[in-house]
């Protein structure tokens, strides 16, 4: 990336490049750590070889079939959530916007639960991700309709809580009415979020949708910059606001929904990552999108590593840990923003 010569040095651009490099290095290191960590002791070198199918057959099976899917899913889910958070915050011009806080993740869980409850997966293999993505789309669409009517931050966050509440109520209803104990435990799992014991099948299901979602979200960049001035000013600068909304809604639904379909609900990644990275990129919304994808992947991977390292006996669920850390963070943000919210 070259920076045009300027009368004003664009320090934020240099910082953004450094940030991207740093996050990429961290991601690669963490992925290596993640595939190295497990009950069976395999050296890092052997793990690296096993990733590409070289070396001891047993090591190859453990790494490729057990550890790699888990690692890749954490990266994919985190990248999807980080990107969704960055774009939703830019679109709604609201630092509290995030798939979890706004009820998009819970709504996606509801979509997945409906599929499980009616056993639709048996009839149609992609029913689960599609159900989750539709659930996410409904929530994102409703929120956007509200945001388009110029409601404040408070209304938006409360609406998210309402969407979340309704989704949880309907999920509980499904659990309540289900006569099948397997379905009940399966549903409970969605609410906690985890990437444990996954196979490449899940990676194959989620990866294309999450990748497409991130791509759609990344295209919004410049328009998000224009929106920093408000919708009228953005329009007067030639921004097609309707197109941006559509990209953001479809992109968030794909990236968040597909993630929920394979990993359940993992909250607050999309809230924390853009918030922490925003000052580094100079608060420029377009420059926040890709670092948030990397940052989301890094944070989710760190959380999943923590889950594995902290757990004794029963493993802590990934979504439980991110909520335990994310909720105080959310509360801290509310306190910091309380003057703006009134």
């Amino acid at each position, binding site marked *: 990336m070259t*920076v045009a010569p300027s009368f004003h040095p664009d320090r934020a651009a240099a910082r953004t490049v450094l940030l991207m490099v740093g996050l990429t290095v961290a991601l690669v290191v963490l992925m290596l750590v993640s595939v190295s960590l497990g009950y069976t002791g395999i050296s890092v070198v052997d793990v690296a070889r096993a990733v590409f199918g070289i070396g001891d057959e047993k090591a190859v099976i453990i790494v490729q079939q057990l550890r790699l899917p888990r690692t890749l899913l954490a990266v994919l889910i985190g990248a999807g959530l980080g990107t969704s958070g960055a774009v939703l915050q830019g679109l709604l011009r609201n630092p509290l916007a995030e798939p979890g806080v706004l009820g998009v993740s819970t709504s996606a869980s509801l979509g997945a639960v409906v599929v499980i409850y009616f056993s639709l997966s048996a009839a149609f293999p992609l029913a689960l991700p599609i159900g989750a993505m539709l659930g996410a789309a409904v929530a994102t669409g409703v929120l956007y309709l509200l945001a388009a009517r110029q409601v404040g931050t408070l209304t938006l966050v409360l609406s998210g809580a309402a969407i979340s509440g309704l989704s949880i109520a309907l999920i509980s209803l499904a659990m309540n009415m289900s006569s099948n104990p397997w379905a009940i435990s399966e549903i409970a799992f969605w609410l906690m979020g985890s990437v444990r014991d996954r196979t490449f099948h899940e990676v194959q299901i989620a990866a294309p949708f999450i990748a497409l979602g991130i791509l759609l979200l990344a295209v919004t960049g*410049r328009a998000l910059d224009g929106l920093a001035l408000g919708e009228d000013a953005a329009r007067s600068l030639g921004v097609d606001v309707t197109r941006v909304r559509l990209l953001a809604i479809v992109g968030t639904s794909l990236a968040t929904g597909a993630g929920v379909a394979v990993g359940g609900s993992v909250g607050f990644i999309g809230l924390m990552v853009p918030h922490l990275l925003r000052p580094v990129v100079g608060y420029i919304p377009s420059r926040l999108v890709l670092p948030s994808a990397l940052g989301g992947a890094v944070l989710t991977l760190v959380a999943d590593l923590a889950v594995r390292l902290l757990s004794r006996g029963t493993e802590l669920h990934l979504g439980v840990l991110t909520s335990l850390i994310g909720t105080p963070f959310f509360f801290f943000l509310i306190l910091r923003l309380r003057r703006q919210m009134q």
Partner: protein
Amino acid sequence: MTRLVVEDLEVSLDRRPVVKGLSFAAEDGEFVGLIGANGVGKSTLIRALTNLIAPSGGRILVDGTPIGALSRKALARTIAYLPQGQAMHWPLEVYHLVALGRLPHLSPFARPSAEDEAAIRRAMEQADVLQYAGRSADSLSGGERARVMLARALAVETPILLADEPAASLDPYHQLQVMELLQGISRRGRLVVAVLHDLPLAARFCDRLVLMSDGEALADGAPGEVLEPGNLGAAYQVGGYYGRHEAEDFVLPWRRLRLNGEGLDVVADQER
């Protein structure tokens, strides 16, 4: 040479007619003040001129081309718009904030060119904000912020600049400064149309005033003619204090008038 022509323009908000058959024409080099009481349709007119609202009747032409026929980007490169209130949702560095004005000139994913850089610099010089380039937008005072937002609109380098209450909520010093800036911009060959509430400022700095009343142009012409007592009474229900200072005529809104059967009366002192 740029010419903005508005012909029999009608604009409705929620099916309620707000602008009702308004016509006027203006050219580059002019500073036109759009004045009138609250709710007569000034902001709606400005928003229609930037194609933010579609008119329900009439035409808006720039050099003979209806603005609806221009592409999004072509329109953005023709008319810059400085909205009321000057919202800024993230604390961007001032340089980056002004650089947003170059959005209509950038092709997707391309980085700003030397020409963009030059335009940003020119805009910041004209609005006298170059010294704030590295400051965070949320650290600016009201007057500094108004000029930075003006620089953002100037950086688009359009032949036409529309501003909605650019001097509102500023102290007198900064009001004068913003009006001087807008006048200077028009002198350098752009058409500036601004919604204004401060009549003495509008009269002093604008070349022309368009006085709106109930969605129509009640008067259009030199400030002295437009602000004559009859128009002032009809449009604002106020009487003016007319005077002359440093070889310039001025008018101050002086007292409220009230409607009676035949016309307007001065509101009696005891009612004040």
